[in-house]
């Protein structure tokens, strides 16, 4: 799949990413942990790559987790 089809969920820390990926797995949503793209942040952490088509489904899946999302960016 080409990179245009993806977005990344940027979070504060790897632990937060872990919590989110568990929820996405439960919901059957595709994900992969990837380094934060440099044009988004200079941070050394990871973010959750998702399908661009799933952005709204991911937002709603994560909404009640209590994890603050820094942003969801298309890549």
């Amino acid at each position, binding site marked *: 799949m080409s990179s245009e089809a993806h977005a990344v969920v940027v979070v504060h820390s*790897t632990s*937060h990413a872990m919590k989110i990926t568990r929820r996405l797995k439960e919901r059957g949503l595709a994900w992969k942990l990837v380094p934060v793209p440099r044009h988004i942040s200079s941070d*050394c952490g990871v973010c959750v790559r998702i399908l661009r088509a799933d952005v709204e489904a991911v937002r709603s899946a994560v909404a009640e987790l209590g994890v603050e999302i820094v942003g969801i960016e298309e890549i």
Partner: protein
Amino acid sequence: MIYLDHAATAFARPPEVRDAMVHFLDRVSANPGRSGHRLSLAAAEVVYEAREAVAELFHAPDPLRVVFGLNGTEAINQALVGLLRPGDHVVTSSLEHNAVMRPLRALEARGVAVTVVRCSPEGLLDPAHIEQALRPETRMIVLNHASNVVGTVLPVAAAGRIARAHGVLLLVDAAQTAGAWPIDVEGDHIDLLAFTGHKSLLGPTGTGGLVIGARVDPGAMQPLKHGGTGSASEHERQPEFLPDRLESGTPNAVGIAGLGAAVRWLLDRGIEAVQEQEAALAVRLIAGLSAIAGVRVYGTEDPARRTATVSFTVAGRSVAEVGYALDESFDILSRVGLHCAPAAHRTIGTFPEGTVRFSLGLFNNADDVDCAVDAVARIAGGSP
């Protein structure tokens, strides 16, 4: 050799603990939450799985509010030093370990008021006495879940109800109960639960942590340590979110791998089953010791109100002599003296001499107990 010092540190552990640590050292061994490559992510996964296991064991809703550290003492210090300010008042019990008493006395010198509520000579605490000690400026109730000297279990659920009713926080020191006794931070209104990994949780030394409830604002908690967290690296100020705020520096990931495996093993076995097994041994031990002329056993006999930690003295023999004879002549390892808990010994009337303490573990059996009782009977009878 019969090891009866589990209240200090567990001896035998499930092989899964060692296996998880060897696997981590051989196959993972990267820095969790730092680099983002596959091994770093695998390490972060191991640590997160341990957070999940700990959260499940203590009925805590959010694994991100499980903060790992070195041991129970560090967790207690983080909670007390992190939240208490001059002018605040704290209520605690006369059964506490120095892990609570010493940081409280240090804070007292900096303007925090401390009230120590007396427990009975049996080591029982009347929750009404906690409520009577509250003041308008009380910020926290701090209680041992169970005494490391006499094994009596303190009424944390009642204290939790009192804490909620009066808008104060409840910190529970679960060093003696985590892994051996059911703990429900949500149900019992525990705002801060300090645990250590190397006792009944059956993990390695150098592991422990603090479970932080929803009523505690992490941003208002002063970290014991500041430093790198692998997150928010563009800022030179400590992040406010958990667990990163309170976990600066590379964690003891190999230890946490072992702790996670140990907690998962306990979850599979069931804490109620662990508790029943240890209670049966404790009842046998107390009955055996109590029947020996010249032996005095401290604390309640009621297995529903105590852990498998049993303190006793032998008339005419110092505790040091008894401990030495048990080790040298009978190959039985106990702990004698004050057990880092002078207040508890004052409460039960054994200060400054202390007691001999047998603390049973999950891998002890009835034969161990019978041998220990027989050895004490011989020592009480004048041997060796």
